[in-house]
């Protein structure tokens, strides 16, 4: 079926992919941060002011938990002395992210506050020509998430389209 076609199926399908990926990534990042600091779950719980160390494994580092609060995440970031970024992004960017595709990041710019929906980005019929992101044929590049990004150094389809425009 292909990854992009799976995303295209429905809003629910997209939401589930985003949720699952986020839940897993955040749990593994927290575990990696704790490992890097050399803390046991008990020490980590103490530093975070969490009563029971079981909550570290059962919640914070559990890839299926998915109920981390922003307050907790900020506390973890401060405890581990790292920065934290939480933002909404267009699906095209997310696809690049999860498939390991190099993406030119312009940082905080006007586009940061103008986030196109999946429909805006990919359902080309409803998008004005000047806002058309990728060339539709190139969207097939996303169909094999496991090929995409491997050893790639060239721009993604959207960037290619933008550069050639």
């Amino acid at each position, binding site marked *: *079926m292909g990854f992009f076609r799976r995303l295209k199926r429905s809003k629910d399908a997209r939401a589930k992919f985003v949720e699952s990926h986020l839940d897993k990534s955040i749990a*593994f990042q927290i575990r990696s941060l704790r490992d890097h600091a050399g803390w046991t779950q008990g020490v980590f719980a103490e530093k975070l002011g969490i009563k029971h160390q079981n909550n570290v494994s059962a919640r914070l580092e559990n890839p299926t938990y998915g109920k981390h609060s922003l307050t907790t995440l900020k506390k973890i970031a401060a405890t581990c002395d790292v920065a934290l970024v939480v933002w909404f992004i267009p699906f095209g960017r997310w696809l690049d992210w999860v*498939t390991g595709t190099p993406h030119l990041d312009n940082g905080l710019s006007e586009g940061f506050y103008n986030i196109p929906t999946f429909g805006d980005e990919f359902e080309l019929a409803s998008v004005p020509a000047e806002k058309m992101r990728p060339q539709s044929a190139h969207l097939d590049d996303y169909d094999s998430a496991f090929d995409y990004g491997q050893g790639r150094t060239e721009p993604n389809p959207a960037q290619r389209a933008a550069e050639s425009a």
Partner: protein
Amino acid sequence: MNSFFGIDVRGEGRVVQEWFNQLTPEAQDEILNLLLHLQSLPMGLWRRPEYDPLDGEGGISELRAAEVSSDDGVAFYRIYGWKGYPDTHSYTFLHGTDKDEKNDIQGKERAKWRAEQLFRDEARHHKFDI
């Protein structure tokens, strides 16, 4: 980035790919979610509950997707495979199943047999189509 491959067994075909293809879209999505996550995670950081190294099982290991609920109940999917084949950043699937057994002896044996076939050149790896 890590890569995932299927196995093409002489006389049997692309067994894991065919197993995956006949799953419901929900089950396929759940497996894909798992693979997307593991794809970007260095293999040294793969851990339970999503990855089980199956110590003492001759080199095979197991990937476990989250449970999938449907009208028929809750299903649980796992894929046995070989970490580090055909190269260090690759994982080759050997056997997929929805058997919810604590110790799936039959599935593990099948995976081990297929691994042997792979190393004896009686089977080949192929690009896994998601």
